[in-house]
């Protein structure tokens, strides 16, 4: 009996030991959580941190990778942290959900620090990236990196079917959808069982979301006057979904899906990818693909060009996302937190991070340097044509609703019905924030019309 009591006491002691909370208030240890949690980027962030600690002796940064399990806009990590009062001082997250988080009261505005800073920090960064993270006329994040979307193509696969890859050279401007479809048809081959063995182009693969195509169709998504998202009325959006219905029928969605799941299975290591393995000739994807290509398919002979446009002569387009740094609500180590954010997004910090990862920096002056060094010179040009996703406080709901509608259409539903349902999803959410003014220049970014 005594032994049992002792055992219980020991366990109780251990449990109590696990009960120590974190002291609040200013501290020399800065806790930073990051959603950029893969090994490459964690290492890169650590390099920046090492430089920060060298420049600020006495300060130490605790970097904690926190992979986002639920995809974009899953607030659960930060929500539970803030409510449980265990939030980090600095959080690295995707910029798109920032206005949503801000609307929920999860983030602290940074305007005070930005105004007090010696230089005009925001002016040095890409305008679109800056505007993407504003809410209620306040700035909630400082951007770090930009990505952009483009069409990647496998030159060898094209040559194999007698197509000269120079046809897609970006110097001639963006290819048309019709051109891409024509090339694709030559590459696509079917095996004995009727299954696709090789494909030329899957319009919805990679970054080919309906959202992407809609942006290409000059969709506006949100009508400020009526404070309403325009999924069911915007012609640019409707065209994109009609195109999806068309492709679904023409390519036989089920067979394409089987192909895709075979060669680019969900939750697979990045090396299990149809494009990297020479099964898919053309794919809409982004700058982040470059590091994967270097790592897993260094011998792939590929080219990059603008996203396909509807008609010959249309201006190129793309959209950008990327990460930024925020300060969750309720944190008390704010002065030091700001120091870290400032350093991370400074020229030095961005240079370190971008050189290590190949992700393009948000500071416009730095872009050419990094782009050239990592074989992404083309993207310097692309960035001048990009916009960001519409910065509304229900961004992730919008994205999810559009994604669901896309899946529905691909599985056979009528585009009009699917969009009506999507509209029904987002309306009640958006209503809570009306009236809602969009940041003045959100659409433009640095995009020249």
């Amino acid at each position, binding site marked *: 009996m005594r032994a049992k009591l002792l055992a219980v006491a020991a366990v109780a002691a251990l449990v109590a030991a696990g009960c120590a*909370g974190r002291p609040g208030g200013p501290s020399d240890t800065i806790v930073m959580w990051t959603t950029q*949690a893969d090994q490459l980027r964690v290492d890169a962030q650590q390099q920046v941190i090492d430089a920060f600690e060298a420049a600020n002796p006495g300060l130490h940064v605790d970097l*904690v990778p926190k992979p986002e399990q639920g995809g974009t806009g899953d607030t659960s990590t930060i929500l539970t942290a803030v409510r449980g*009062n265990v939030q980090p001082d600095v959080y690295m997250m995707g910029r798109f959900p920032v206005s949503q988080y801000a609307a929920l009261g999860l983030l602290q505005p940074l305007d005070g620090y930005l105004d007090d800073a010696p230089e005009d920090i925001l002016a040095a960064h890409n305008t679109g990236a800056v505007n993407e993270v504003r809410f209620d006329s306040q700035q909630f994040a400082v951007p770090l990196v930009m990505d952009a979307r483009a069409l990647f193509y496998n030159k060898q696969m094209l040559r194999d079917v007698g197509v000269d890859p120079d046809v897609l050279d970006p110097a001639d401007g963006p290819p048309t959808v019709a051109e891409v479809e024509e090339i694709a048809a030559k590459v696509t081959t079917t095996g004995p069982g009727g299954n696709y063995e090789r494909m030329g182009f899957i319009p919805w693969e990679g970054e080919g979301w309906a959202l992407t195509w809609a942006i290409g169709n000059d969709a506006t998504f949100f009508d400020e006057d009526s404070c309403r998202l325009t999924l069911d009325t915007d012609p640019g959006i409707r065209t994109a979904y009609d195109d999806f219905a068309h492709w679904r029928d023409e390519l036989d969605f089920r067979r394409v899906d089987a192909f895709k799941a075979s060669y680019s299975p969900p939750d697979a*290591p990045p090396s*299990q990818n149809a494009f990297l393995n020479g099964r898919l000739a053309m794919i809409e994807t982004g700058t982040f693909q470059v590091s994967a290509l270097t790592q897993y398919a260094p011998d792939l002979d590929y080219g990059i060009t603008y996203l396909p446009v509807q008609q010959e002569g249309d201006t190129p387009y793309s959209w950008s996302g990327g990460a930024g740094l925020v300060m969750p609500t309720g944190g008390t180590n704010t002065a030091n937190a700001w120091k870290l954010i400032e350093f991370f997004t400074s020229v030095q910090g961005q240079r370190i991070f971008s050189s290590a990862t190949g992700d393009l920096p948000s500071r416009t002056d730095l872009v050419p340097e990094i782009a050239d060094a990592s074989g992404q010179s083309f993207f310097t040009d692309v960035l001048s044509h990009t916009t960001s996703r519409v910065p509304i406080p229900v961004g992730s709901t919008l994205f999810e609703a559009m994604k669901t509608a896309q899946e529905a259409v691909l599985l056979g539903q009528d585009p009009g019905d699917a969009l009506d349902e999507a509209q029904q999803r987002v309306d009640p959410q958006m209503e809570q924030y009306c009236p809602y003014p969009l940041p003045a220049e959100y659409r433009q970014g640095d995009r020249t019309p």
Partner: protein
Amino acid sequence: MSTDTSRRAPRIEQSPQHAERPTGRRGTAVARFWLILASVLLLLPIYWMVVTALKGGPELSRFPPTLIPRDPQWHNVVDAVRAIPFARFFLNSAVITTASVVGAVLSNFAAAYAFACLRWRWRERAFYLVLATLFIPFPVAIIPIFDLFASLNWINTYLPLVVPHFFTSAFFIFLLRQFLLQIPRDFIDAARIDGANHLRIATRIVFPMARPALAAVAIFQAIASWNDFLGPLIYLQDRSVQTLSIGLQVFRSENDVQYNQLMAASLLTILPLVLLFFAFQKHFINGITLGGFK
């Protein structure tokens, strides 16, 4: 007051005669055949885990995947343990599990004793209430309980995961009650007449008799705590207190999945449970068996 243990409790034991005995050698062979078939089917995922854990990076990405690793990378196991704070996670899981088991055994025994060995007016009706709570979907409680623990500043501690088990659970009350109902009422009455009060009876006499059932509770709770995902997901934000079950998520990030290490770590995670089960099977099964569910 004497607790006269010379008046020995009837040992609640059962003869092993109730199992199906396959008749003859042919019967045994047939039984074995089906057993092996069933085991193979159910073990396929485990086999795949082992195979994947041993593959090196390049072999991982081959299409179609190889069924037997060409070049087993035994060091993957070591890498997996190094890639995450494995020892820390293991310790956390162990402490939480042990404490939860202690809590579950004690509190549920007490409640089951009340429902099985004591007589009081609303006993049956109260038990219906207990049963009803089996049906209360956990979601109802997530947010309020989270707020409760947050206001107590218990986030990032073991407490939210351990303390609730000290306050019973309907499933275990049910299980233990079934077992304790086996004890003849006369026996308890006799001890009362001898002068023992219920506290003594419960702790000195009935508790030891209930060992098989308590073992069952202990093992069920151990498995549940060890593999608990949602609880640690919500309550444990800090690396230093996280458990193995959510620690595995580190292997999946936005741009990558470390398949082999994930599988290696998963295998290490279930190893203690497997050993536990293998060793304590008999006690465990006796514990639930004697409930009889009558």
